[in-house]
Structures are given as structure tokens and as C-alpha cells.
């Protein structure tokens, strides 16, 4: 039996439009299980622990990366498998696993092919996609409040332009695996557990026990807008992008800056980010990107 945790706030309430059809489809496939809805901050962790106490072996996140992040932090070492029905404003993990929309997600859940993927750790918080410092955190804020439809897109673009115009690069010092240090002004720094972000090298895998540190040193206004839209091809910006592979990285800055994990701010610098000893069991598509 599957335990479905629905986050009604994910992706501006996408789930509300398809909820009945989704339940009907899951019933058809014989994997209906139990459905619960989160009611506010911290509730997803409470519902996850409830599922563990009830003895469920599979929890399905009906939401985005933020919902998944709360579930994986509550799963702990229970060995529960995670399924995903992507409904968030950011669905990086689902995309990486080859799950692009809810109908497909239902079929993948029914097939139940499970893989283990790495997890990252920031202080005591786990993450599965990426940790970010810099402009990504501005984007996460903008996307969280974004409405669906053309008005929502227009509003997002207006806010993105204002953010790109006023954004100041951050000076960061990184120590990687205690072997070498890196110092630079950066537009954005991310630590990705696989090719979750469109500018991370495709060789990057979520099963290699490594994290990919990607530093973007400087972007002009036009490129910052393209970056915000996800249309900037950083392979055509030689010299502006640095890439390192690491297991553990210490990040310091002159003044504390926010650090996000799976799209949510969880800490601030100085911070140590590393590959966790824990792995996540996750239901994947045959068409996954690793």
C-alpha cells in the first residue's frame, strides 16, 4: 500500500485541478492507498512520521522538490521508498528520474522500479537535488510566489528584471575536501547531486558519491535574465563557469549569506556541505537521466 502526501500549496495549487482524476487513475492501477494533505509548515514531516509508524513501505510525494525535501528529512534511516507525482514549481528530482507529468508518474509508481541515489548534507539537513548560494535563491523566491498562466509569467519576468538589475555578486571562499581552496566573486554557486541543473555537466550522476560544485563568476543583465528563464547556455560562456567534483566543501563569505537545499533556505554561511552516508530509495522511470 502506498501513502500519498499531498502538498496543496505546491506549484501554486496545481494538484487541486487534477486531484479527482489522479485518484481515479491510481485506483485503476490498483495502487490507491492512503491520501493525506499537509496543512502548513512542518506538517509534511509529521505526516511522514505517521506513515512510518503505520508501517508503510512507500511514501509518494505529490508536490515539488520542497515537499520531497521535507519527506526525505523525516524518513531518516527507515529504508522507505519514495515515489513522486510532480506538482511543484520546481520538479528537478522528478525530471532527473524521468517523471515529467502526473499520468506518467502513476504508471511509474505501478511499475515500482527502485534505485538508490546519493543524498547531500548541510549541517544536519539532507538534500537530494542541489544546494545553492546566490542568484538561485532569488529565483526560488520568485518562483514560489508565481501564479499560473500568462499574467503569472508576466509578473515573474517583471520581478526577474528588477532582481537581475539590482543583484550584487558574492565573494566566496571554498575549501574542497581539505585539498585545495578557491576564492572568487560569484553570481551563483551550486552544489549538485547529479545533473539536476541545466548547467551541470551531463557526466554528473546521483549515484557517484560525489557532488558537483559549479561556480558562475559573473553574468551581465541580459544573461542573468536568460539564466532566470533557464535558457542560458553556459557552455558558450567559457571562463565564466568553474566546475569541481567534491565530497565535502566548506563555504565561507565575509558576511553571512543564505544557503538553500532543494529550493528552500536551510542555513547560512559559513557552512559545510558534504555527501551523506545515507542513501535514498526512489521509484524511477526507465527513461531516467542517469
Amino acid at each position, binding site marked *: 500500500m502506498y501513502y500519498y502526501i499531498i502538498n496543496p500549496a505546491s506549484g501554486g495549487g496545481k494538484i487541486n485541478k487534477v486531484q479527482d482524476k489522479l485518484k481515479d487513475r491510481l485506483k485503476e492501477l490498483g495502487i490507491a492507498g492512503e491520501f493525506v494533505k499537509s496543512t502548513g509548515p512542518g506538517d509534511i514531516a509529521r505526516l511522514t512520521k505517521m506513515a512510518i509508524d503505520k508501517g508503510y513501505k512507500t511514501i509518494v510525494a505529490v508536490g515539488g522538490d520542497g515537499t520531497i525535501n521535507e519527506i526525505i528529512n523525516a524518513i531518516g534511516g527507515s529504508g522507505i521508498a519514495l515515489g513522486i507525482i510532480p506538482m511543484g514549481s520546481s520538479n528537478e528530482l522528478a525530471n532527473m528520474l524521468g517523471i515529467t507529468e502526473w499520468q506518467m508518474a502513476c504508471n511509474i509508481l505501478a511499475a515500482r522500479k527502485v534505485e538508490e541515489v546519493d543524498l547531500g548534507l548541510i549541517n544536519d539537513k539532507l538534500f537530494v537535488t542541489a544546494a545553492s548560494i546566490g542568484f538561485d535563491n532569488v529565483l526560488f523566491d520568485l518562483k514560489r510566489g508565481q501564479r499560473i498562466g500568462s499574467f503569472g509569467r508576466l509578473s515573474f519576468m517583471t520581478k526577474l528584471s528588477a532582481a537581475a538589475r539590482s543583484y550584487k555578486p558574492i565573494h566566496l571562499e571554498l575549501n574542497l575536501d581539505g*585539498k*585545495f*581552496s*578557491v*576564492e*572568487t*566573486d560569484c553570481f551563483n554557486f551550486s552544489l549538485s547531486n547529479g545533473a539536476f541543473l541545466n548547467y551541470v*555537466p*551531463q*557526466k554528473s550522476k546521483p549515484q557517484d558519491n560525489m557532488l558537483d560544485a559549479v*561556480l558562475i*563568476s*559573473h553574468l551581465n543583465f541580459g544573461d542573468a535574465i536568460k539564466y532566470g528563464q533557464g535558457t542560458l547556455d553556459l*557552455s558558450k560562456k*567559457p*571562463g*565564466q*563557469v*568553474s*566546475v*569541481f*567534483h567534491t565530497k565535502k566543501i566548506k563555504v565561507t563569505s565575509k558576511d553571512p549569506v543564505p544557503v538553500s537545499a532543494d529550493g528552500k533556505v536551510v542555513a547560512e554561511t559559513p557552512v559545510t556541505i558534504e555527501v551523506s552516508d545515507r542513501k535514498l530509495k526512489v521509484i524511477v522511470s526507465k527513461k531516467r537521466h542517469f
Partner: protein
Amino acid sequence: MFEKKDEFVPTGAAETVVGTSVKLKGTLKSDGDITVDGSVNGEIKTKGTVTVGPNANIIANVHAKNVNIAGTVQGNVVATDRLSVSESGRVYGDISANILSIAAGALFSGKSTMAENVKEPEIELTVEKEEEPVLEEVLESPKK
């Protein structure tokens, strides 16, 4: 176009990239390709290719399979296969390679060693091998 390719061999997407504004200190080790466009102070080691971009400034010993230099390297460079210095390249240190290519206009100050030179004595050993049948006859004769 072909001449340019001979002078500076570009790589595909490198696994490790040091960007233009980045200052790196310490030992940079990798199994894959490394591209440096910024500055490195320490040591670079890889089983793949090191590409030193035109704006790069390296104060480090470099050890790799292939090394392509278009920037500045202050340190010894060992390429187990090919070392190429393009016309904008500056190398202050000793270099060692199996195949060496230095373009006109490049600056090189140091001692160079080529693996081919080291292998020369092996040619004499091959000549000695021609006498082996005689030795075998001598060894086999007591058995008879």
C-alpha cells in the same frame, strides 16, 4: 586551420574547470580532463588532459597525459603523451613529453626531455636479440 589544430588541441567538456576570475590554491587532482582559465598556485595532476587557457596563470607543477598550454605556466610540466604550447603560451620550467609541439611565438625557458630520446638504448637491445638462436642452441645441447 589544420596548422592551428596542431598548435593547440582543444578538449571537449572538461570535468574540472577553473574559471577566469577564480584563484585556486592547493593540489588539484582528477582522473578526467582539467581546463584552467584562472589562476592556480600549487599542483595539478590528472590521468587526462590539462588545457591552460590564454588568460590562465599557473604557478604549479603539472602532470598529465596531455597538456595544452596557451597561457602562462611557472613550474615543471610532465606530459606522458603530448605537450603542446601554442603561440600565446609561456612556460617557465622544465618540460617532459612523448610528443612535443611548440608554436612559433611561444616562450619556453627551461630544459626539455623527450621520451623518444630516453628510449634510444632499447634499439641496441633489439639488435642483441638477434643472437638469441645461438644461445638457445648452446643451452639445448646438454639435454641431447
